[in-house]
């Protein structure tokens, strides 16, 4: 996955036990009346990280961010920034800035004045403010729009003004609340890379809230998948995608086939018996699984090969009938029903132009995948 670091040295401060985290959530709970938005959450975020909070709406990710900004106080627990408790610090005194989902640009001020707004509230001398604003305009390529008002520029430009304004005070932590939600897909993709570029240039720690898993995968160094106020999994994008720790995470990120069955221990892994008469699935796993335990097997569509005859170099095979084909341009998705009625999606890259399509609707095919292609999950 794309990471905001080009150096070959892997950026992974979370694996270094001597590294001090920039932000520490310690047993944080937040309740609104009877509703528990954040449930006894503990989390460390490190310097220079691009950290994504990912989850469906109402999972508590926005509340978590607003607690960092100072707009909400935790009901229980402590939030530390650089080792200091920031809960009693009001939002205007925190070295934290936020880029709002609606951008919240001041409509009565020009782009220049919007960016200078925070600097003028600090004790920075006047001439330095001008320089800093120019620097921010350059960084976000907005030099020619400095005199415009927010309603006179496009959505993408507004987004960059909001980013420039929140970066101007050089915060130790920048919070981004669904920063790209209002942009169309193409602009969103471009802006994602711009964001990563800016994060790398400024060396600021970014925490981004999003419900768009693709966005989180693209920009983040680590992703926290949340549900009902709890962290389900915190890992790198690759870790989240390839080694989800639960059906919830596997299902939330990308497309996945979930096959349920009973486990049987074999040498170096387990067999999963998912249907009468069908060959069991062989899977490697580190989990300690008992014979006869009910498990879920998660496998991504692109890990499954579609062919007319079984591919002998792979451990797992299943026969089925194609019921649907989705042509997405760069790849084709095949929806196959197995003998027991289980539906499986397999995707093949369309590596060649104008290649003849080997399979069509109602063809009998064989699906093959290796014993390390899928993940065994117990929750």
């Amino acid at each position: 996955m794309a990471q905001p670091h080009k150096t070959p040295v892997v950026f992974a401060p979370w694996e270094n036990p001597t590294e001090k985290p920039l932000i520490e959530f310690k047993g944080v709970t937040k309740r609104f009346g009877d509703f528990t938005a954040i449930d006894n959450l503990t989390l460390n975020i490190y310097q220079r990280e691009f950290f994504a909070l990912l989850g469906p709406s109402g999972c508590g990710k926005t509340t978590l961010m607003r607690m960092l900004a100072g707009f909400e106080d935790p009901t229980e627990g402590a939030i530390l920034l650089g080792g200091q408790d920031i809960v009693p610090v009001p939002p205007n005194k925190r070295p934290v800035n936020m880029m709002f989902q609606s951008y919240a640009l001041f409509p009565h001020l020009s782009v220049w004045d919007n960016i200078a707004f925070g600097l003028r509230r600090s004790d920075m001398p006047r001439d330095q403010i001008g320089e800093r604003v120019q620097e921010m305009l350059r960084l976000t390529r907005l030099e020619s729009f400095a005199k415009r008002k927010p309603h006179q520029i496009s959505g993408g430009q507004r987004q960059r003004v909001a980013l420039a304004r929140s970066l101007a005070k050089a915060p130790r932590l920048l919070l981004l609340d669904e920063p790209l939600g209002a942009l169309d897909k193409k602009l969103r993709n471009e802006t994602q890379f711009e964001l990563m570029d800016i994060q790398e240039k400024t060396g600021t720690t970014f925490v981004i809230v999003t419900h768009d898993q693709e966005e989180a995968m693209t920009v983040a160094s680590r992703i926290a998948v949340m549900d009902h106020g709890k962290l389900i999994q915190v890992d790198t994008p690759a870790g989240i995608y390839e080694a989800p720790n639960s059906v919830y995470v596997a299902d939330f990120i990308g497309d996945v086939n979930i096959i349920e069955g009973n486990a049987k221990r074999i040498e170096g892994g387990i067999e999963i018996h998912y249907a009468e008469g069908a060959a069991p699935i062989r899977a490697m796993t580190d989990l300690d699984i008992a014979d006869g335990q009910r498990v879920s097997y998660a496998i991504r569509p692109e890990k499954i090969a579609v062919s007319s005859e079984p591919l002998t170099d792979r451990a797992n095979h299943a026969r089925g009938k194609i019921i649907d084909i989705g042509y997405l341009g760069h790849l084709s998705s095949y929806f196959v029903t197995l003998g027991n009625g289980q539906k499986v999606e397999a995707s093949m890259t369309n590596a060649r132009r104008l290649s003849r399509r080997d399979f069509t609707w109602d063809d009998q095919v064989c699906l093959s995948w290796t014993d390390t292609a899928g993940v065994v999950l117990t929750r």
Partner: protein
Amino acid sequence: MRSTDAVEWAYARWLDLVLAAALALGGFLLLEHGSDGSHVTGGVMIAVAVFMGLYRISRRVAVIAVPYLWLLVFFLVPFVIVIKISLSDIALAMPPYTPTLDPAAGWSGFVDFLGKLDFDNFEFLTMDPLYYKAYLSSLKIAVLSTFLTLLVAYPMAYAMARAPEEWRGTLMMLVILPFWTSFLIRVYAWMGILGREGFLNSFLLWLGIIDEPLVILNTNIAVYIGIVYTYLPFMVLPIYATLEKLDGSLLEAAEDLGCSRLQAFWLVTAPLSVPGVVAGCFLVFIPTLGEFVIPSLLGGSDTLMIGKILYEEFFSNRDWPVASAVAVVLLLILVVPIVLFQRNQQKQAEAGK
């Protein structure tokens, strides 16, 4: 040229509407000034004008024509009549001014009529200091009471906009509620409150704060109280409207960027509520300038307001021409703020797009 061609030609050049307007104007003047016989002529002229107007309206511009027709009939024509009276002289007759237009005298009669109109009444207004003092005093009272209304209304509107959403409807209702009683009764009620033996004095005497009753009624203070009370909703509602649609995340952004709550108010809320404040100020200032009921009921003999002068010229002196001149000057004074108000509204509408 056939006659239908002539109609088409006139139609294409809007001559029919010009003719219709002229007919209507002439008709109104005849109805206003003419003798018995010419009333009929005037009525027929207006009818023809309306028919000509309807003919075109039905063909093309029904939608735009309605407001213009409305303005023509209910603003422009009466205003032309008022201007005409202001240029006339007082007379012991019915109507109590001269000259009147006699259509029977024809074109030369019309020229003669025009020749008799003069600016004597306007000249008279400049000679008697009473008038310019009354204009200035009205202006002072209007400006000051607009400012006082703003001082009271802004916190009210702010509190309303900040109130929980389920309360806002009720609060709005409470602001509008006084309109359900007659304006006159409400002003009379203030006489009961502010009088020498009124509620306010009795209450303050009972509390022991004062030994002597305060003299408030029949002073300018009572006028200010009455105006602020009466026009408060006109100030509260537009300010509330701008504050209510203010995006709350703007204030959070201001705080996030280092503002205290107070700074955020002055740097964000206050400038963004300016359109509402401007609209409210005009809605209070414009009617207050010509206010007549409040100063005459609550004010004293030394409360000088142009509305009162206008009333006295018209009903006590029966000097219609001077009264009309006073009214025309008042309108000219008001045109400036009205134009500014319209501009403000237009700017707001454009910003809203």
